């Protein structure tokens, strides 16, 4: 069966990762956190869709954001989970330039909360290398088979970041097992397959998009190895996302829509009408 919308795959992969982490890996994921996050994202999405924009309820987007938040964020209290979820979805509707949201919702929710308070944090290394390898393969398969719109960005970011890690190891004379180990992070997996590839917040044109991927990798590397921060790809995307509207103005291109068929059909109609 061929699914038209890559988001079904994303939901399946993120959902499996969450179930695996919760039931088999014994992660510090509480059912309270997961339920609060999912409920708040879906409710917020519904309210903003129906009453703010007056459009169809986009439950798939809300669910992807909710699953990403459930996987990456940890907090002591359920209301922090709810706040992150609300911030995530709210940012998607409120912080917009030319009708396009500026931040990846989950990224915005997580990093804003992590910057604001100590009660929320990320746990990047709780998956184990075997699990991650399996999920990397699944995610790559997903990106390829669904021809996800932003696979170029995913590849450029990952190649740039991996390249930086390897050049560092070569410079220091370290064994290559070190950069390989550094690439085995749950946060990096979710980031490179589900966050930076979010087609609604990346530059529309290919050239700036690829440059954007390199810039995120460079900033993530700088924050990681010069300032010694953790989870730096997420911070890098957060700090660089405001550049995307500028890049879109400088480099014009078609806006991405999840269901391309509808655009193609519209274009066909237009062509027919004009001819």
């Amino acid at each position, binding site marked *: 069966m061929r699914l038209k919308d890559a988001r079904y795959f994303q939901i399946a992969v993120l959902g499996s990762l969450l179930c695996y982490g919760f039931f088999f890996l*014994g992660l*510090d994921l509480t059912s309270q956190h997961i339920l609060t996050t999912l409920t708040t994202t879906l409710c917020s999405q519904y309210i903003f869709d129906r009453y703010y924009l007056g459009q169809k309820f986009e439950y798939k987007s809300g669910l992807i954001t909710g699953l990403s938040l459930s996987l990456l964020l*940890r*907090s*002591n209290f359920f209301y922090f989970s709810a706040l992150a979820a609300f911030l995530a979805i709210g940012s998607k509707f409120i912080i917009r330039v030319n009708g396009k949201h500026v931040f990846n919702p989950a990224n915005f929710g997580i990093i804003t909360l992590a910057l604001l*308070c*100590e*009660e*929320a*944090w990320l*746990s*990047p*290394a*709780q*998956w*184990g*290398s*075997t699990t991650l390898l399996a999920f990397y393969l699944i995610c790559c398969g997903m990106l390829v088979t669904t021809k996800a719109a932003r696979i170029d960005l995913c590849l450029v970011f990952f190649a740039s970041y991996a390249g930086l890690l390897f050049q560092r190891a070569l*410079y*220091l*004379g*370290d*064994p290559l*097992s*070190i950069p390989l*180990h*550094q690439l085995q*992070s749950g946060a990096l997996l979710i980031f490179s397959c589900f966050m930076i590839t979010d087609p609604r917040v990346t530059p529309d044109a290919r050239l700036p998009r690829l440059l954007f991927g390199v810039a995120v990798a460079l900033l993530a590397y700088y924050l990681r190895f*010069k*300032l*010694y921060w*953790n*989870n730096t790809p997420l911070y890098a995307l957060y700090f660089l996302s405001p550049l995307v509207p500028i890049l879109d103005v400088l480099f014009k291109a078609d806006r991405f829509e999840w269901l391309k068929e509808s655009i193609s059909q519209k274009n066909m109609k237009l062509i027919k009408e004009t001819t």
Partner: protein
Amino acid sequence: MKRLIPYLILLATVTVTPLAAKAFCGFYVAKADTKLFNKASKVVMVRDGNRTVLTMANDYQGEPKEFAIVVPVPTMLEKDQIHVANPALIDHLDSYTAPRLVEYFDENPCNRRVYKAMSAMSMDAAAPAGAARNEAAKKLGVTIEAEYTVGEYDILILSAKESSGLETWLTDNGYKIPSGASEVLGSYIRQNVKFFVAKVNLEEQSKLGFNFLRPLQIAFESPKFMLPIRLGTVNANGTQDLFVFALTKTGRVESTNYRTVKLPEGMDLPAYVKDDFANFYRDMFSTQVKKEDMQAVFLEYAWDMSWCDPCAADPLSNSELKELGVFWVEDPTPMPVYRKPQSGQPGQVGNAWGGSAIAPVPAAANVYVTRLHVRYDAEHFPEDLMFQETGNRENFQARYVLRHPWQGSDQCPEANSYREELKRRQTKEVETLSTLTGWEVDSIERKMGLHPGTSGAQSNSGSNGSSGDKWWKDLWR
């Protein structure tokens, strides 16, 4: 652009009890070809913001004069930034956070029960060091930045331009460099670290009257929250164990580049384990390490330092914490301690050494302790250990429970159902113990006296103990 403080530290210390020998996370350099045995080391990391105080203790077997350490440090250290600690502090912290065994006695089904707890894991402390110097260092690109005598240690702070120069300098000064160390040294040199080299000053040691080497402490400011373990694996014979005691303000510390796993805890074990707890814990830990493919850091304890329940030892006093480097503790007077009344509820509050459990203290010192245990080698832990402090204040302790069966021979319906329940419980205990440790079921049952013809401490001598249970007899009562 302002240069950011470079890399952290490889810390190694050695506390020497000339008897036992364990490892340290740093790089050990011996002057002679003496067999030095690296097995376990302890590091206390006090961390808030960028401020860090590290206390390093290792068991070391050998003559103090033969011991020396090389520790990469992020910055130049002034004399005041180096201190020698009392090993009793680490012992106390070790006892307070140790995995513990809690013991209950089943009551006569018509009566009550008693309980008490014991802590089982206790480790020795240790830590040595010594340093060498050389006037020709500069020719080799090695600069002796500073030279101090602190306590029984002669300490040098070195910087180096290349690993071969440093290696030659160390070799010329009588240190034996394990093969493979120069690559790791080179990596640290390119990260602009300084090297803290310490040796024992025998004269000072005899003046001070210590016949063991005390833990070394250093205080510094660096954004990097990590423990360098790579050099420590170079000369390691097999795996090493490292215990990290992190003292923070906010909450639990976890590794950011290795999986941090909670040890299984809270389960009931056969009562005979009481006399075999050390073996149980060792085997259980090894089994868990294997289960995680030796790629995990294990959480043994995470608790607010102002209380414990059950207590394996009393919480550290403010003056002890201060000595360990907890710089935000202002008041050096001991913390007030409130004893929790014993509830007597089975399965709830265990009770500790001396029968105490300590409840939360109001306005406590705001110190949260995390005890991590990692077994590592170069293959499974290629990278230094990186950490982060999280906001997680959920308490966790590696705690195991013994329930001594009631041995009475009273006959009553309650006693009969107790005996049946006991059988089920013991079967579960056998399974649990076998799963946790990998021990043979048969051997566990024999030790429990569950096999016919054996007489174990827990054998259920009551009626209905055989396999021919009349399970239906209470069905329609």
